[in-house]
């Protein structure tokens, strides 16, 4: 177990190193950050000054090593635009995205797992058809359309929910639904097919052959197995949500990581973009690690060798 965690952490570190290089390259190899930072209406001299101030005229590897050296001291750099330490900026935006992601995932799981279970329990019935239909339709609906639709209906037309901002928990309802809805079909399908498999497996037949009550069989002896791949998928989905909430956060003006990323891309705030790519990669790697550990807790075959 300890060996496993060590190995996984080593892998995570490797992933983060490679991602940091990719992130750095992505950001530095295209366009002129100085031009964007100087803004419209800046003269050539203004831009040159910016280039000098931020050291963009040095060789790339030197800039990269500098960045990494600072990262190792816990210094993410400084946002030229927001005039704050990137660490502080992230600390401000991260919780919002984390909340949004957690709520979205929660919504997705609450909707998809029971649906998947019921669909597997009663295949080819109304509920199965309904959930399949939901899955197919769900995948077909672009999240931005869904988000705009939600906003129009609940925000403008019915006026039940606040439209933008982060003032109260109600602000998170629509974004969480819009974001979580997209993950629902995949989780639902996986739960369903997992449950179908488990329900036909020998040990479930054993459990039934020994007179255990149906719910015990379903929850304790079936769902626990079916949920194992779902845990991994949920971790991946949560990772996607962290990086993929750009559209949703922009629409609902939720100032999370995705929103920050998009804004920063537009104003070439490269320190932030780099940091976000890195943070998301780290979060993703850690999430999958957590999923693995969770799976190990669920399945002793992984845990005890």
């Amino acid at each position: 177990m300890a060996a496993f965690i060590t190995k996984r952490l080593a892998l995570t570190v490797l992933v983060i190193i490679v991602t940091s290089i990719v992130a750095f390259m992505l950001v530095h190899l295209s366009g002129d950050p100085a031009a964007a930072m100087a803004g419209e209406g800046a003269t050539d001299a203004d831009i040159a000054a910016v280039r000098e101030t931020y050291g963009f005229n040095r060789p790339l590897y030197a800039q990269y090593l500098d960045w990494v050296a600072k990262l190792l001291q816990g210094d993410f750099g400084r946002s030229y635009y927001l005039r704050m330490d990137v660490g502080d900026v992230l600390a401000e935006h991260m919780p919002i995205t984390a909340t949004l992601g957690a709520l979205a995932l929660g919504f997705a799981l609450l909707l998809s797992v029971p649906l998947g279970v019921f669909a597997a329990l009663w295949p080819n019935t109304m509920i199965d058809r309904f959930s399949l239909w939901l899955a197919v339709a769900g995948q077909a609906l672009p999240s931005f359309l869904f988000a705009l639709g939600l906003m129009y209906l609940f925000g403008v037309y019915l006026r039940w929910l606040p439209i933008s901002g982060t003032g109260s928990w109600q602000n998170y309802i629509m974004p969480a639904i819009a974001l979580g809805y997209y993950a629902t079909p995949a989780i639902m399908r996986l739960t369903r097919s997992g449950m179908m498999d488990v329900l036909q497996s020998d040990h479930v037949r054993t459990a039934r052959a020994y007179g255990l009550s149906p719910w015990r069989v379903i929850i304790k002896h079936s769902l626990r197995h079916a949920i194992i791949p779902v845990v991994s998928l949920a971790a991946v989905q949560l990772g996607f949500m962290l990086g993929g909430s750009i559209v949703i956060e922009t629409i609902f003006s939720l100032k999370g990581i995705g929103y920050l990323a998009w804004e920063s891309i537009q104003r070439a705030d490269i320190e932030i973009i780099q940091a976000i790519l890195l943070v998301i990669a780290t979060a993703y790697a850690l999430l999958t690690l957590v999923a693995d550990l969770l799976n190990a807790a669920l399945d002793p075959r992984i845990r005890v060798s």
Partner: protein
Amino acid sequence: MANSTNIAPLSPGQLAFRRALRHGGFWTGGLIILVIVLAAIFAPLLTPYDPALQDLTQRYIPPVWSEKGTWDHILGTDNLGRDYFARVLYGTRISLGIGLLTLLISGTIGVSLGIAAGYWGGWPDLVINFLITIRLTLPVVLVALVVVALIGNSLTLLVLVIGLLLWDRFAIVVRSATQQVASREYITSARAIGSSTPRILFREILPNITGPLIVVASIEIAHAILLEAALSFLGLGVQPPQVSWGLMVAEAKSQLMFRPWMIAIPGAALVLLIFAINLVGDTVRDVTTPEGKA
């Protein structure tokens, strides 16, 4: 003595196809896709308008079914007075084209990597798995945005970026499918009768993973189309005078409150296409799972 003489033998593929034909979803999905593809091909015959032809005197005409609509512009016109029906039709070409082209790129990359990892195992598997992990840690939308925003956008770049980003699912699925197939005894048999590696990969393994491959392809083509739409929505997708549905939604976004049909029309086209692709993919998933596990 055996009694199966009269039944013409069907290959598993044909059997699956037969089962698919009995599937309502396959018909619905297939029909929608067919109509859309035909519309894309015959767009110039279906509308007299050039999708880029503007007429600033004819802006924001609503579709025929609303009070102020006219038959001249069945689906109305947009902010530059361009015929909306023509734009939807020609938009089909770009949306489908992007889907197919990116599929080609991502499919080639993903299938090659997946097969290599699944068949050889060992260190190629480790390396490819690492590549997949790296790819997964980089959020698609974010990377696409960075690249497109910074390098500038053209259709080629868009296709390349999306294609180079969406190979992960191919690789993952093909890898595990290949692993499964490779552990079968017929692969050992093939090696024992002296088959070359390419022969094993292409004659023995590839035909046996077509089921999952088609499913992933359907998911990824839908994904690519949606991603293009999302990028267009953020203003970084297709460039005029080309039209895509995502771009149309993006351009009509400001009319959400007042002229909702402008979003609804391309939006509905988009949803319908993705829906149909998903339906077909679903059918394939159904009919290729062993015993047609419903």
